[in-house]
């Protein structure tokens, strides 16, 4: 394991450098309307997708952390997730729904695949991270997700300025809901950082469940509301040159590898932090025990 991390880090660095070379190189054509500034898409969109994925993992970990308190709750959550997967996949291919989806520019197969990912990720998370590790995973994915979401909120206005002529479109649903999403997860991290209550982990998990409800709003807002933001390039109404799409997907893969390594480090850090806190607690317990033993003969002699 100790050797694997540096090897993967080097491979990811090479992958990121290759993605950067493709993003800025002549392999991808220049956009006819925006010029070269459109290339921000190769960092902006993969960062957004990575943040959404991390927040979704945080959501599944939080749901399982809340559900594990009671076996009946655990079983109910399991069956709800299975039902969502099955019903969602079948519904995407019902002719009336299919027609509706197509009118919004969505592909039913893309929707079915996305819905199928929900139970897949849920059970994978539960299997790989049992017990307290679910909470460690939740805090890890929230923190790294906030970093990627920050990048989305920084690169978005930098891209908007030359294209729209403004840094920020006040009241735009896509932009506002993304900012709200960022604020929710920042408050989640603040809660975890500064609360010392025994209920902190439960409260944070509950907040994460509500926070995650904003993710579909952010994602689907451009389909259902009038917005300045362009249409999605995959599974939506937008279109993209296949060469650009190819580079976009490579860039996302590179960012996913990078996010995986950062999450790995943050996960180890959280485990180490809990180990130190436990050692401190044991030390103070031992200190208190020794002090009470030392004070016992004294109190007897004083009588």
């Amino acid at each position, binding site marked *: 394991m100790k050797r694997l991390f540096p090897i993967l880090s080097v491979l990811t660095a090479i992958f990121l450098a290759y993605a950067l070379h493709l993003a800025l190189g002549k392999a991808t054509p220049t956009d006819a309307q925006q010029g*070269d*500034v459109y290339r921000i898409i190769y960092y902006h969109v993969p960062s957004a997708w990575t943040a959404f994925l991390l927040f979704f993992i945080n959501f599944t970990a939080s749901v399982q952390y809340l559900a594990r308190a009671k076996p009946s709750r655990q079983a109910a959550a399991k069956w709800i997730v299975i039902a969502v997967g099955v019903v969602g996949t079948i519904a995407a291919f019902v002719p009336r729904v299919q027609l509706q989806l197509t009118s919004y520019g969505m592909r039913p197969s893309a929707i079915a695949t996305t819905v199928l990912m929900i139970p897949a990720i849920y059970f994978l998370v539960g299997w790989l991270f049992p017990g307290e590790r679910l909470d460690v995973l939740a805090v890890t994915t929230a923190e790294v997700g906030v970093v990627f979401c920050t*990048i989305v909120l*920084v*690169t978005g206005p930098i891209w908007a300025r*030359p294209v729209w002529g403004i840094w920020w479109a006040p009241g735009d649903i896509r932009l506002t809901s993304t900012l709200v999403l960022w604020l929710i997860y920042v408050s989640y991290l603040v809660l975890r950082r500064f609360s010392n209550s025994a209920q902190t982990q439960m409260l944070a998990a509950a907040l994460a469940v509500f926070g995650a409800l904003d993710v579909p709003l952010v994602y689907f807002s451009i389909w259902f509301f009038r917005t300045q933001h362009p249409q999605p390039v995959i599974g939506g109404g937008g279109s993209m040159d296949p060469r650009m799409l190819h580079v976009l997907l490579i860039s996302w893969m590179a960012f996913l590898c*990078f996010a995986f390594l950062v999450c790995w480090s943050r996960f180890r850090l959280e485990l*180490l*932090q809990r180990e130190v806190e436990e*050692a401190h607690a044991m030390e103070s317990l031992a200190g208190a025990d020794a002090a009470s033993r030392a004070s016992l003969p004294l109190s007897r002699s004083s009588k």
Partner: protein
Amino acid sequence: MNSIKFLFAAYIATWVIHAFYLGTLVRRFSRLRQQLKELGKAK
């Protein structure tokens, strides 16, 4: 086109944010290792 500076600004901002976060991780790791060492000595 003048907009090229926005492209570089976005790419640089991305890596500055990542570098800053990785820096905080490294700092937190070294602080915790130091604390563990001190705890080990105390025992």
